[in-house]
């Protein structure tokens, strides 16, 4: 009986708040591009357990994106080539306003072709009252065939510096795993307040009966369960080498996956593709399961396990 009371008290004292430059009431954030193009959808997810939402990556102009199929999935992964569809920064103010009715922080994800575009977008986002900016550096590099902005360290460092000098809210850089040297990329983004790891891995699906690539764009980005070991590796390596604040993302399906990212060095995690399996209820479930994990394993504060696996 006394034991039971102690457990209850313990749960009350448990701290699952976390800090990524902004304070979050729990470590579970909605990842960019999944159910966050629309203010109502973000609002609903924020009212159902997510501590914050990163918006779909928004550019200067409205973009229709690629024709469907833009998403292929099986039980282990999702491959998407949405084609950066977005309503354009001009009409995104309304969506953020709606999302902010939840009372929770919204993080504005943006993409552009150069430092100027990124800065413009960041300033607009700031004026819409987002709590932080997330730079999507995986958009196509204008000068490099098939390359991403993120694989050009000079450009990355220019974009980050520029944006930092233009806004006063925290700036996160989201890095892509499609690079030979992620440490270099991370160093280039050093002025960011936190790094978001990882974006999708280049991939594709061919339908052998139709004998054709499924996605209209042929190539897409792999996400979901299959990429978790890749994401954990990048979080661990960069935390160990650079000791930056990190937000982990990639293939998180359950509390064990989230804890693995946190022990690798992530201060918070983003949840994306898994929503196709469990719906938005995954956020409430993760919160419950985190509490249970803390009690079972005698953990009082999430800070005590961030990066604990690093040796």
């Amino acid at each position: 009986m006394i034991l039971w009371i102690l457990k209850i008290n313990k749960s009350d004292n448990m701290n699952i708040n976390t800090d990524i430059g902004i304070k979050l009431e729990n470590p579970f954030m909605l990842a960019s591009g999944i159910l966050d193009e629309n203010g109502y959808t973000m609002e609903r997810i924020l009212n159902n357990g997510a501590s914050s939402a990163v918006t779909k990556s928004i550019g200067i102009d409205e973009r229709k994106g690629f024709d469907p199929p833009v998403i292929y999935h099986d039980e282990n992964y999702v491959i998407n080539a949405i084609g950066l569809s977005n309503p354009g920064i001009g009409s995104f103010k309304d969506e953020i306003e709606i999302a902010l009715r939840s009372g929770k922080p919204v993080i504005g994800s943006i993409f552009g072709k150069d430092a100027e575009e990124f800065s413009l977008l960041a300033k607009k986002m700031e004026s819409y009252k987002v709590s932080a900016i997330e730079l999507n550096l995986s958009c196509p590099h204008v000068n490099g065939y098939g390359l991403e902005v993120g694989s050009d360290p000079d450009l990355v460092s220019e974009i980050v510096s520029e944006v930092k000098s233009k806004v006063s809210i925290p700036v996160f850089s989201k890095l892509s795993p499609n690079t030979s040297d992620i440490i270099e990329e991370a160093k280039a983004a050093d002025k960011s307040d936190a790094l978001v790891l990882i974006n999708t891995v280049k991939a594709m699906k061919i339908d052998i009966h139709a004998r054709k690539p499924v996605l209209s764009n042929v190539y897409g980005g792999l996400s979901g369960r299959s990429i978790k070991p890749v994401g954990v590796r990048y979080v661990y390596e960069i935390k160990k080498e650079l000791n930056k604040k990190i937000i982990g993302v990639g293939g998180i399906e359950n509390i064990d996956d989230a804890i693995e990212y946190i022990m690798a060095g992530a201060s918070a995690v983003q949840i994306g593709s898994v929503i196709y399996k469990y719906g938005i209820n995954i956020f409430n479930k993760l919160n419950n399961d985190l509490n249970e994990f803390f009690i079972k394993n005698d953990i009082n504060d999430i800070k005590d396990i961030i990066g604990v696996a690093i040796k």
Partner: protein
Amino acid sequence: MKYAYIIDNVQESENVNTIAFSSDDDIKPGQFIMAWVPGINEIPLSFSSINKIKKITVKIYGEASEHVAHLKRGDYLYYSGPYGKPFTIVPGKKLLIGAGTGIAPLIPIIDGNTYGIISGKSKKDIIFENHFKDRLKIVTDDGSCGMKGYVTTALKTVDLDKFDMLYVCGPEIMLKSVFDYIKNINVNAQFSLERSMKCGIGLCDSCSINGYQVCTDGPVFSVDQLKNMDEFGRTKLQYSGKRVYF
């Protein structure tokens, strides 16, 4: 991606065809598939028959629907799914209300106690009328078939009290007019919504209405759910995600 061998194609009207194929998928009325037309597009389509032999009734709007509508015996239909929450089938007396091809996904609900209202612009839009024997009212804008008027014209001639459930399918404007007509009457109803869909699995946010995804939370919604959705019949999303007003 699944694939099915087309065994039949029947033309229902000028630009509406029904294709048939056999598959073991367990489909409930109101659920849909994403039909992939390689090189062209991928579109949501629901079922007009859900037995071992499945049927899909397609109206030609653009390239993708045209391709599917013209699949002939021996061709393959590529698809994923089934997706979506189906209609809840209640025992008792049912009224099916479909606008044009909107009647198609309601056909699998028909049992010994079902009545129907089919609306359309004119006679050539009316299909599946023979599935209802005499338990059917038809209403067309131009009066070329059945009553002249809109779906609400037909509703006014029906004693809705007698029905345990209304099942409604058609363009959102038509759904809204039925909804407005019945919202203050004590009658139960389920509406199947249509929004542009890019994924079908609740990830892309392109089909959303007031934070709900039509592809996974719907396409079927109840009166009570719709009462809380102020976007219903008012706004829709472009492919870019931009919200526009009807």
